[in-house]
């Protein structure tokens, strides 16, 4: 299994702790495209990310999701990962005692992408250099005591090593300074294309200047209210969400 795969979400409803957050999402990320999902706080962006990856706290109440034509929702998180889905966490969880090196090797093995030790270490060195990550990082415990920037770089390092077919970036740009943002965005841009599609979730248009999305979607109150090209992100940058959400509300069919 290689090459980017299509993600197709239809009428997705999901609850967290019995509260409905996703209220009928329709969204399709075509093979190898870069899509941006924007929206104000609380619109359901991160919930969508967790639901797609299969966090047990998020319950799908109706709708369908296929990835490369396969039903995603019946799979556990690890099976989704093995199919080629990757989530770049907004708040990566610390795992004390588990080094980055050991974890990456376990993950590669689990995904059937194991390689000889020397090749693995060479690739790791190359990717770390690209992301300006210090060598000492290998033996540090995943996400434990990492700064905000280190956590995000570590997520992109995992992305680069695991080479998924679709990456979901959940507010990967938050908490990064300009230089770190550029490094991280360049890391993703390098991988995006025929081998990997991207669904980038963000508040801010800045990361999109680097990633240049094919499509921008705006999420509000658990639904995609409008979609457009890169110019939609620029409009949000200029005018904020309100005019767009207002227009979407006006255009919505009256019940």
């Amino acid at each position, binding site marked *: 299994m290689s090459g980017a795969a299509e993600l197709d979400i239809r009428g997705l409803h999901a609850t967290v702790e019995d509260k409905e957050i996703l209220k009928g999402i329709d969204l399709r990320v075509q093979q190898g495209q870069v899509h941006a999902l924007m929206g104000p706080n609380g619109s359901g962006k991160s919930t969508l990310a967790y639901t797609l*990856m*299969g*966090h*047990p*706290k998020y319950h799908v109440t109706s709708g369908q999701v296929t990835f490369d034509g396969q039903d995603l929702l019946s799979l*556990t*998180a*690890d099976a*989704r*990962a*093995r199919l080629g889905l*990757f*989530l770049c*966490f907004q708040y*990566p*969880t610390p*795992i*004390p*005692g*588990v080094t980055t090196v*050991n*974890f990456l090797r*376990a*993950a590669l093995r*689990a*995904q059937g992408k194991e390689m000889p030790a020397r090749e693995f270490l060479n690739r790791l060195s190359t990717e770390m250099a690209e992301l300006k990550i210090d060598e000492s990082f290998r033996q540090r*415990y995943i996400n434990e005591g990492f700064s905000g920037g280190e956590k995000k770089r570590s997520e992109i390092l*995992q992305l680069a090593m*695991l080479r998924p077919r679709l990456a979901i970036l959940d507010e990967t740009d938050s908490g990064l300074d300009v230089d770190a943002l550029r490094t991280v965005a360049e890391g993703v841009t390098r991988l995006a294309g025929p081998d990997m599609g991207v669904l980038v979730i963000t508040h801010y248009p800045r990361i999109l200047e680097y990633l240049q999305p094919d499509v921008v979607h705006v999420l509000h109150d658990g639904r995609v209210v409008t979609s457009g090209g890169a110019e939609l992100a620029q409009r949000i940058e200029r005018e904020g969400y309100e005019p767009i959400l207002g227009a979407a509300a006006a255009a919505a069919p009256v019940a």
Partner: protein
Amino acid sequence: MAIQARELTKDYQFGFHDKDISVFRTKKGLSPEVVASISQHKNEPEWMLKFRLKALDHFLKRPMPTWGADLSGIDFNNIYYYVKPVEEQSRSWDDVPESIKNTFDRLGIPEAERKFLAGVSAQYDSEVVYHNIREDLEKQGVLFSDCDTGLREHEDIFRKYFGTVIPPNDNKFAALNSAVWSGGSFVYVPAGLHVDIPLQAYFRINSDNMGQFERTLIIAEEGSSVHYIEGCTAPNYSSDSLHSAVVELIAHPSARIRYTTIQNWSDNVYNLVTKRAIAHTRATVEWIDGNLGSKVTMKYPSVYLMGEHAHAEVMSAAFAGSGQHQDAGSKAIHVAPNTTSNIVSRSISKGSGRTSYRGHIKVLPKAHNVKVNVRCDALLLDEESRSDTYPYMDVDNPDVTIGHEATVSKVGEDQIFYLTSRGVNEQEATALIVNGFFEPFVKELPMEYAVELNRLLALSMEGAIG
């Protein structure tokens, strides 16, 4: 230690047993006659027979301890106290009887010796069947043998220290060991000598209804250092076995002793062990104590800090699966001023498994400027598992610094999700978290043992996820 697994049970791969080929065994149960017959069989001097009989007396008089784990399943009358597997001890693997050799081959012992050990001792039931030490160390005066040989060939040194750290009346099980002890290790390191690669002893119970009572005595003379490692396994029998060892360490001024244990008894073994060290001026004693197996373990490696600037380091890890109770911990007795101790304990409970940390810190009135650090962390793998902490502190000097921290945590849903989102399944994710939790312990082990321990933990985790 490359170990060939032949799994009789799902979790425990050392549960095989070999045909009993013993050449002598005492009749079941305990009596002065049984004790005398062990002593006579070993051709011991009179003073040792007297020591044993007096110890038996202590044992019979003392009540069963009820403050710790449940010991009510032990039937002292249904145990063989001495089982001699072979006539002669060997220094060459070729001379070891085939079935015993197979056992140790499967456990990877000769291979480990060739690769990274300075000396090896292998005990099978009551006696050491194979024993060897690197020639250069022997020439420099390092003694490494079973305790019986220590008594026979170096009676002066042996008698000077034997039973001085743990007297026979110390507790019921130390008394039992003192009455029927056999095998174990006797190590003597001359002043100033550093044994820089480990000596290892391997303990194997093979017979059904067997009690193993090895006795270990390690003496490190001034300015010397030694690292001793012990490992142990047993077959899975339907009836219980008893392992009750006594380990005495003496670290003379500026000496350093590291004692590493990987306890992996099958889950029908009561493991009731007394381990204690004396640390003289500027000496360091380190207990690295890992408990994975057994039905019940009660073990609290202790250090008596007798000389100024002596230091104690106790790093322990315990894993209790269903039906197991690991009641472990440590004691540090600060007798002299300016002494320090650092105690780190990590325990994991799974299913109906139970871990207890039981620690005792004592600071005597004259011991000023003492520094103590205790940290115990417990990880519970499910709702059923249990962990308790019993820290006791007796501090009779106001000039001390004591740090004590204890945590109990559960494997977090978010941790599992994070790991599984990268493709490892839930069981592997749990194993990674478990290995990570034990990492501070594992990194204290020689590489070969660290690898082995991680593998054993992964095996123990099989079926952990319902």
